[in-house]
């Protein structure tokens, strides 16, 4: 008998819901069989904790006396530039933003020790941040200069808004060249010296709901230690990526745009991140509950690391030149074993996404549902799925003449 989200929520309210993590469900289904497991288990929690570059936050800092219109002017938080294209006192900070005087890659590889991701972490941690701004002044907003400390507790809306998070699967990065390269996938040693991957595999949200049957617009989630929501499909959402017979994409596919109140989040689950030679970013903790509505949905959540494959891509040439071609396909089980085989060579692996932290998030979310009566949501609208025909298009450049 299929269940409804409403029925599951009634059980949650009575404290009777059976909630397990996407790791625990594997053994449960093996032991009890899919049919029984689908009857007994109400919710499976999934999670991920990794660097997610398309992340940022918008803040309303409140009006100064006399008033200033930052829109069209310039503003900085701890010397990191913020975007001022919204009205008078709404500012937007992106995880990749860097101080104007950061040397970047002038001496390669650049250090990138502080940027937008770190500003967001410090804001969430309750630290005072230095706001400096200049504006052109108008009759209604006469002020031209502002320098002050700000603190999250004194601000109005503080919203984490990440246009692309929780990638459904990702590349495994290697380096075929004979020099060290510094990428967003980490430091890659020459001649297949290491292979870096970035997914929680069997715990990862969209790998447990490959066709987005339960995760959709409006889904309530764990975001950065607080409560957030899926706002839209993420940018570069590519549901038509090739899939294995179990529905799991073999390469980067779906993505999520997520948002939530920064004031309720914690620096433990939003971490300013430094990729040497590449830039700064934000590591985001995301947990998503999957309501077990029927056997099909349960079957998706039983996906194991050995059933999930990723493509090995050369980041010295194929990736930067946007050339097609994978050096092969490996499973997350192989990746987690510490060694994969690429072009006949054993290559040691490392991950950018923390499986240990993802597991912690899946457990926290489980407790929220069981103890704090965190209720599940019916998606307001589904995300475009494999049948949508939606693909991720490259840029068509046209000469300016």
């Amino acid at each position, binding site marked *: 008998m299929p269940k409804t989200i409403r029925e599951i929520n009634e059980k949650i309210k009575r404290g009777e819901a059976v909630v397990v993590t996407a790791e625990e469900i594997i053994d449960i289904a093996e032991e009890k069989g899919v049919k029984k497991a689908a009857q007994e288990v109400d919710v499976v929690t999934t999670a991920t904790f990794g660097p997610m570059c398309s992340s940022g936050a918008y803040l309303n800092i409140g009006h100064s006396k006399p008033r200033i219109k930052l829109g069209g002017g310039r503003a900085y938080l701890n010397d990191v530039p913020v975007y001022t294209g919204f009205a008078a006192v709404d500012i937007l900070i992106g995880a990749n933003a860097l101080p104007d005087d950061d040397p970047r890659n002038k001496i390669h590889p650049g250090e990138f020790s502080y940027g937008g991701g770190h500003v967001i972490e410090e804001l969430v941690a309750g630290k005072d941040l230095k706001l400096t701004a200049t504006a052109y002044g108008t009759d209604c907003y006469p002020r031209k200069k502002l320098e002050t400390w700000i603190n999250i507790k004194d601000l109005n809306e503080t919203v984490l808004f990440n246009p692309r998070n929780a990638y459904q699967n990702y590349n495994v990065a290697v380096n075929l060249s004979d020099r060290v390269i510094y990428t967003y996938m*980490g430091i890659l040693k020459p001649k297949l010296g290491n292979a870096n991957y970035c997914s929680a595999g069997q715990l990862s949200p969209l790998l447990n709901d490959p066709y987005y049957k339960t995760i959709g617009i409006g889904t309530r989630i764990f975001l950065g230690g607080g409560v957030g929501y899926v706002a839209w499909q993420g940018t570069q959402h590519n549901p038509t990526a090739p899939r294995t017979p179990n529905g799991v994409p073999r390469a980067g596919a779906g993505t999520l745009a997520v948002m939530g109140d920064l004031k309720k989040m914690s620096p433990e689950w939003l971490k300013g991140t430094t990729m040497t030679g590449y830039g700064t970013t934000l590591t985001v903790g995301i947990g998503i509950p999957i309501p077990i509505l029927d056997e099909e949905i349960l079957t998706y959540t039983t996906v194991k690391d050995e059933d999930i494959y990723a493509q090995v891509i050369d980041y010295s040439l194929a990736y930067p030149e946007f050339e097609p071609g994978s050096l092969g396909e490996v499973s997350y089980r192989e990746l987690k074993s*510490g060694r994969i085989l690429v072009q006949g060579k054993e290559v040691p*692996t*490392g991950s950018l996404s923390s499986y240990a932290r993802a597991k912690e998030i899946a457990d926290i979310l489980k407790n929220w549902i069981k103890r704090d009566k965190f209720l599940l949501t019916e998606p307001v609208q589904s995300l475009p799925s494999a049948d949508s025909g939606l693909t991720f298009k490259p840029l068509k450049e046209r000469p300016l003449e």
Partner: protein
Amino acid sequence: MQKKKVVLTFPYKLINQPITYHLIKDYDLKVNILRARINPREEGRLMIEIGGEEKSLEKGMNYLKELGVEVQSLAQDIRWLDEKCTHCTVCIPICPTEAIILDRNQMIVSFDKDKCIGCGLCVPACPYKAVEILF
């Protein structure tokens, strides 16, 4: 023959003295300089591997201490910050000595000071500044 890795910190006034020369010449020690940093007007730091007879090694160390050089065994100078480590594992294939250890059942990372040679390769590789070489 004994060998150890130490970090020498010496005050500004000693910067111009040929300390390693004396260690080699007067105490018959083998000195291999791993890293050096001299800050003008401040202090100098030298990471060395030093080897020789137990007695000579002891005498050499005493000579340094008498001069006012601070001697630290190397592991004290390299810190892995548990509270900053997210256990991502991206440093694992970078470390040449398996000083950063991964428990593959739990996917939890730990640090074995004794195995660390202070090469510093993990420092730029860690996205969370969880490894510090105080050099």
